[in-house]
């Protein structure tokens, strides 16, 4: 069967893949000599046979009728488990980079945000063990511009608190306070403000992450700059 000249350009596909009748092959070859568009398109796909040959004589698993045996380690049953490992690693690496999240100081948004930041990882993997590290973005209180990210790392002795602060006051003392479920506040770290307004410190508390009700960053005079509620 031959094809009308208007339809000649579609022959490019079978010209590349093979299978055209002698008449069609001749017609397309002739058409190709004068058609710029087909010449350009052919240039883009002429390497296709070489690529297809890479997939082996039968074109690989997607082209054969028999299902391909998947080796046991590639089964996806353990995806959730792997994901927990992966996210644990994410948390660990995250502390090594400065990734900031802007926090809006509006009160309602603050509470929702802190709750979301806290619940996020748990909602993400509801059936899997608790991640070793949880991150919270401490929300700036009204009138404060600070940006603070706190990583809670579960340790045998309690909780390690890795604090990244930006846009902080540039003088005076700063402190991290931990408030337990009964409302008792203890200081977990104190440091001196830097001219750059940026600091990274690590604090410690004997409390376990689930025993912490809130974290506060305060000035030396006790003014709360930011808080994260659990």
């Amino acid at each position: 069967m031959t094809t009308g000249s208007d339809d000649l350009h579609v022959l490019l596909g079978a010209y590349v893949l093979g299978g055209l009748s002698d008449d069609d092959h001749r017609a397309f070859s002739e058409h190709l000599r004068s058609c710029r568009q087909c010449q350009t398109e052919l240039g883009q796909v002429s390497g296709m046979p070489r690529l297809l040959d890479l997939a082996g004589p039968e074109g690989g698993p997607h082209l054969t009728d028999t299902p391909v045996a998947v080796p046991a380690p590639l089964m996806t049953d353990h995806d959730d488990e792997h994901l927990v490992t992966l996210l644990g690693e994410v948390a660990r690496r995250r502390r090594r980079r400065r990734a900031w999240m802007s926090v809006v100081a509006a009160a309602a948004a603050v509470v929702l945000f802190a709750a979301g930041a806290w619940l996020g990882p748990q909602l993400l993997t509801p059936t899997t063990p608790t991640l070793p590290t949880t991150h919270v973005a401490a929300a700036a209180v009204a009138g404060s511009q600070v940006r603070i990210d706190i990583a809670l790392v579960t340790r045998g002795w309690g909780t390690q608190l890795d604090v990244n602060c930006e846009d902080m006051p540039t003088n005076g003392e700063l402190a991290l306070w931990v408030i337990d479920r009964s409302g008792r506040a203890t200081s977990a770290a104190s440091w001196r403000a830097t001219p750059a307004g940026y600091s990274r410190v690590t604090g410690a508390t004997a409390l376990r992450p689930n025993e912490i009700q809130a974290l506060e960053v305060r000035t030396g005079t006790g003014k709360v700059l930011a808080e994260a509620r659990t």
Partner: protein
Amino acid sequence: MPLDDEAVAEIYREHGPMLRRVVWRATSDANRVEDIVQEVILRVWKQAPEADNLRAYLITTARHLIVDQHRAAGRRPQQAQLVDVAEADSALDRALDQVLVEEALGRLQTNHREIVRYLYFERLTVAETSTRVGVPEGTVKSRAYYAVRNLRVILDEMGVTR
């Protein structure tokens, strides 16, 4: 911040299975597959979480990672067997290209894929393919045209530019 967790989880869920197949076929080492896949995702998440072409980025990263590990293994003095690094690299490249082309074929829509199968791999004619698939010859021709074009697009997306 859970936004990161979500981003990583999404990359893992969407691209994990493909990466696992690619790495498995390229390394044939089931014990290392998951480690490599996770490392690839972590690197890409760290370097370019918003990359336009995440798939190509992931595959390129996997390629580099596997090649680097191959080289490191080849250099290890306690390995008595001397590995020809250049030879191992090109074998690895071939293996990766093979997997990528197979993956690309898998991503082609079914009625295009079967045309590629009959015309190219089974060497049937357009007329024979028409009978086999049960559509007119004109349809086989136009499907062949779009199959080739789409395959090119998919391969470009995967970073196979040759």
